[in-house]
């Protein structure tokens, strides 16, 4: 099952490499990873998505917790949560396709952020599924480039991940 794990860790050199290294060392998958400092500049928040059965996820969480730089973490998929990913996608848009691409982008609430006579750059946010759905909906339209940020997430309601 796909999981979203959010990690609060020391914003120190080497901390990220320990997390990434753990995954390769123990043969776990990382599907996406995003990291940036929080409102407290000494702390970073790292969000990653991975897949595995319950046993594997339990081990991943335990091993992440063992890292000295990791202060706290949460498996967001265990409860209600908000998941967002941002995608910038450059597609060919000429002739009749130009209107069609715009219409699909509107349906997905995408924003055209750059244009040339032959292409659009569209910005889209949402769950990874929605982003995948948009790419699927563009079938037939040549995609020139895709840049996705990876998933960021936060729990719904009063639950917070903080020190």
């Amino acid at each position, binding site marked *: 099952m796909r999981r979203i794990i959010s990690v609060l860790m020391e914003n120190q050199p080497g901390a990220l490499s320990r997390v990434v290294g753990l995954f390769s060392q123990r043969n776990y998958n990382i599907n996406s990873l995003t990291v940036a400092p929080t409102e407290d500049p000494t702390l970073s928040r790292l969000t990653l998505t991975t897949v595995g059965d319950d046993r594997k996820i339990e081990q991943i969480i335990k091993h992440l*917790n063992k890292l000295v730089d990791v202060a706290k973490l949460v498996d967001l998929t265990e409860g209600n949560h908000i998941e967002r990913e941002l995608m910038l996608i450059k597609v060919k848009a000429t002739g009749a396709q130009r209107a069609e691409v715009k219409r699909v982008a509107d349906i997905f609430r995408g924003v055209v952020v750059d244009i040339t006579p032959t292409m659009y750059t569209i910005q889209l946010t949402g769950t990874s599924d929605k982003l995948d759905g948009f790419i699927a909906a563009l079938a037939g339209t040549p995609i020139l480039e895709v840049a996705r940020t990876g998933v960021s997430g936060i729990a719904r309601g009063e639950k917070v991940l903080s020190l």
Partner: protein
Amino acid sequence: MALLSGGEMLLRALHDEGVEFIFGYPGGAALHIYDAIFRQDKVEHILVRHEQAATHAADGYTRATGKPGVVLVTSGPGATNAITGIATAFMDSIAMIVISGQVARESLGSDAFQETDMIGVSRPIVKHSFMVQNPQDIPEIIKKAFYIATTGRPGPVVIDIPKDVTDPNVKFEYSYPETVKIRSYSPPAKGHSGQIKKAVDILLSAKRPIIYAGGGVIQGEGSELLTQMARKLGYPVTNTLMGLGAFPATDKQFVGMLGMHGTYEANMTMHESDVILAIGARFDDRVTNSDVKKFCPDATILHVDIDPASISKTVTAHVPIVGPVVPVLKEMLELVEAGKSKIDAAALKVWWERINHWRTRDSLKVVLADNDVIKPQQVIQALYEVTQGDAYVTSDVGQHQMFAAQYYHFDKPRRWINSGGLGTMGFGLPAAMGVQLAFPSATVACVTGEGSIQMNIQELATCKQCSLPVKIVNLNNKALGMVKQWQDMQYGGRHSHSTYADSLPDFVKLAEAYGHVGIKIEKLSELKSKLQQAFAMKDKLVFIDVVVDPEEHVYPMAIRGGGMNEMFLSKTERT
């Protein structure tokens, strides 16, 4: 407040931390530190002949004393040579501080002479690591490093220090922090009382129980409490390879080591049990055998460990307890005391009858050879008698290691010093140096083989320089015995690169060349007397080269893919 350079601060901090010895080898990036060593007399530096040996010596020191050993190496090759020893310590959860010199800060990342990314290279095999960015940070980093290395599940910590950080001309105020707090690191202080209660209830109602104790009991100083509790319960106890000595081997409740080369009775007792209390053990594949689905099918598993990641990693625990062994055992002991009347004495009696029946199989019986040929097991038996079971025994890796584990009956913790998890050949002699330095008047025997000993033979020179009277017991079967055994059993007897009889050195002459005493033993009839002679030379290193039967295999041996009850018992018998 004193003004000190980075190098001086490092030495002061180590002294303030109670360090007696540094095991090391100098080189360019560490020279400021070496000069600081020269100008003080509080911490003694032991000059090894290869950095790998420095790590094993520090490791042996930790295992024997419980205090973290300290290593100092230079950058580049010095640091990478230390890697095997760091990995060895990591796999066996041994506290160790490894200080590596590094190129100056301004040269970092430029592929400078002797530059290696030590933090990166060592990352998967350390508990934590620090790159020192400023000299002023040294005291706090040393404090944190020792705290991290020794608390929770212990492990090695690397401190990488760029050369200019230890510049003798740049001085700062020094003060050593009394306490340390790391907000992202909080090892458990005690177990969950509810879980402990639940575990003890199950333990007391067991009909076919066994206590399975590992190296964590020794590292956590829990041997005495474990022994008390086991005796109160009257249950059988088995120790892992790493746990030998956690419970006395000569106690009637001890059924021997378990696992791949465990006794028949230990493995059978495990397999047939209905409750297993695992303490400080990690259900390693050398214990469970390769197919965990066949592991102890009837057993309810109670698992005490300080590392939650060790629990339910391979075998699912029914009652997990995360905590240090001493407070958990204290709580358990009280509950056992109070609930002792619940023990099913009749069932336990029947259980012991079955165990005693398994014991009659005498799985460690030595089949004697003809013509005065020495069986390797007999060497360990003789060693046990000559040293009256009271030696510190270090070992290398292979058949001799298993024979030592099986036939030297360890009654005390911290006496059996071997590389269990990583299985590092070349560990034994340098580890023995660390033990002998810690206990100068103790008998320290290094049980080794002619393969392993040659992986760190150069340390004979360190032993000479430091007058370390280690006794090296070399089980010489003229082959890589364990490799050859597997080739006999699984590869149709094709001994691919496991023999070298025609190119072995004369170990007696070799020992003499290094300024030590060498003794060769070839006949069973002279085994004990010559061993006695060797061990009587209290202040000398004696290299005892014992020519043993090259055909011998280690048994029992687990059958791959089977349950714990499936073993080869000799070349011709199996369960």
